[in-house]
């Protein structure tokens, strides 16, 4: 293990950068998509069906298919594209569900008092949908961290490679080491997101927050 440590660091960093790249692109793509279909309801069914469909394709085959496409080929581009598509289902669905979960009377009150559509979105819908949207983001990050291991078969040098080599060499320790490192990475990212979430979500929207606020006020 020890003489492999530089390799493990390399794999971990590769893994992390892949996950971060995918998460960045997926958020930029799928959060607006979720917002759009919550506004233009008639596209919601089709969009979410597409997300489900993509999610159902076995990851190994999706990586494989992209590998054969010119300009994608072996390596990061194919990996990123495939993982971004996987992220569509949890992200789009949770954004849509989150926005729809906002009490329509609150939205109506806002509109009735003269908030523009953009103000309603930023000041009412997004903050109130945050807990659900954020749950989707956390699930996505953990999911992508896991599936990213498969990308090792199309040339990504990440923690999946430990598992892959372990399998080909029947080396159980190596498989377990890889799995544990992937889990640690996933848990670490989830923990950090949890910290961010607590700062972003208003105490008024969670029962715990409300109760805590009450104690403080007495």
């Amino acid at each position, binding site marked *: 293990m020890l003489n492999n440590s530089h390799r493990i660091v390399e794999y971990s960093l590769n893994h992390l950068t892949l996950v971060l790249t995918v998460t960045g692109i997926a958020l930029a793509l799928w959060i607006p998509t979720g917002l759009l279909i919550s506004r233009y309801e008639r596209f919601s069914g089709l969009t979410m069906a597409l997300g489900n469909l993509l999610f159902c394709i076995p990851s190994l085959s999706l990586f494989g298919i992209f590998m054969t496409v010119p300009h994608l080929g072996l390596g990061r581009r194919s990996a990123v594209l495939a993982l971004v598509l996987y992220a569509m289902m949890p992200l789009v669905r949770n954004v849509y569900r989150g926005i729809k979960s906002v009490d329509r009377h*609150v*939205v109506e*009150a806002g*509109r009735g008092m003269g*908030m523009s559509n953009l103000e309603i979105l930023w000041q009412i819908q997004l903050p109130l949908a945050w807990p659900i949207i954020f749950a989707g983001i956390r699930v996505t990050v953990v999911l992508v961290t896991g599936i990213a291991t498969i990308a090792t078969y199309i040339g990504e040098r990440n923690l999946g490679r430990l598992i892959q080599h372990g399998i080909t060499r029947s080396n159980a320790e190596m498989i377990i080491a890889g799995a544990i490192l992937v889990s640690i990475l996933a848990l670490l990212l989830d923990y950090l997101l949890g910290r961010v979430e607590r700062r972003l979500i*208003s105490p*008024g929207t969670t029962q715990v927050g409300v109760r805590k606020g009450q104690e403080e006020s007495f």
Partner: protein
Amino acid sequence: MIKLERLSKIFPEAERPAVEELSLEVDQGDICVFVGPSGCGKTTVLKMINRLIEPTAGNIFIEEENIAGTDPVLLRRKIGYVIQQIGLFPHRTVFENIALVPRLLHWSHQAIEERVQVLLNLIGLDPQEVYYKYPGQLSGGEMQRIGVARALAADPPIMLMDEPFGAVDPIIRHHLQEEFLRIQQEMKKTIIFVTHDINEAVKMGDRIAIMNQGRLVQYGEPADILARPGSRFVAEILGDDRTMKLLELVRVETLMTPLDKCSEKQSGGFQDAELQAGRESVQNGYSWLETQKPLKAALEIMMRNNLDQVAVCREDNVVGILGWKDITSYISNLERGGRL
């Protein structure tokens, strides 16, 4: 002044118009209550005034200006809006909720702070106590009050209130109604108020608009409508006790005979025009009550003490006399079409 002119709304795929050819005017500073069974179109009328719903035909004028030509977002910032479900923002503190419209209007922070303080005092909540609380920490009655304060925040000349006290229990509702009428006496807002409760309509309204199936069936002052319902439908809405409701509406001072116009025989008991006020008592065959009380209270005292008339007092001095006959002849006169 708000003027509705042949206002109609037909929703797509609806069997009949939600609102049909409705015209009426609401004077500056009046509370106009729309009342009727559910689905009669009263809320639709209200939402057309702040353009949450666009009319199919007809016009709405606010201060002679046709609102169809205004920017709906800017229009709404000048109109207070209160709904039954309140719709407070759960993720914002009480302060932030009330500050909403002033912030949209870019008031200075200091002006907003001061305004919120004034409003919280006005609605009878302690600023210290509720300022940083979230709506989830308030009682139903407190939330309704905050909802009203939020609508009043930028001091709009017009308020739209859709069953604003509908979500609280009867005792709290009674308090909120009284409180709101007290505030309104100072504010003199022009208010469109929607309710399905005829008692609330009679109590709150300077004018009442009774609606059925999208049409305005009667529009007038509460006492007029109570005395002379224009149709069977209106009479049914008013209930079996519309005369009693009328008695609740009219103050004893409007009907009493002032002391100086009383005959010798009538005023015999008050030669010295003095009475031990401050407690309910019967002296020389009279009991008394204050000028501001409703006729119903006078009847109550007469019935309980088996009297034919009561003395009417202002600040411990007897100023007039009200007889049983005055009340009954007043009512029969009204029903025959006389003026108030």
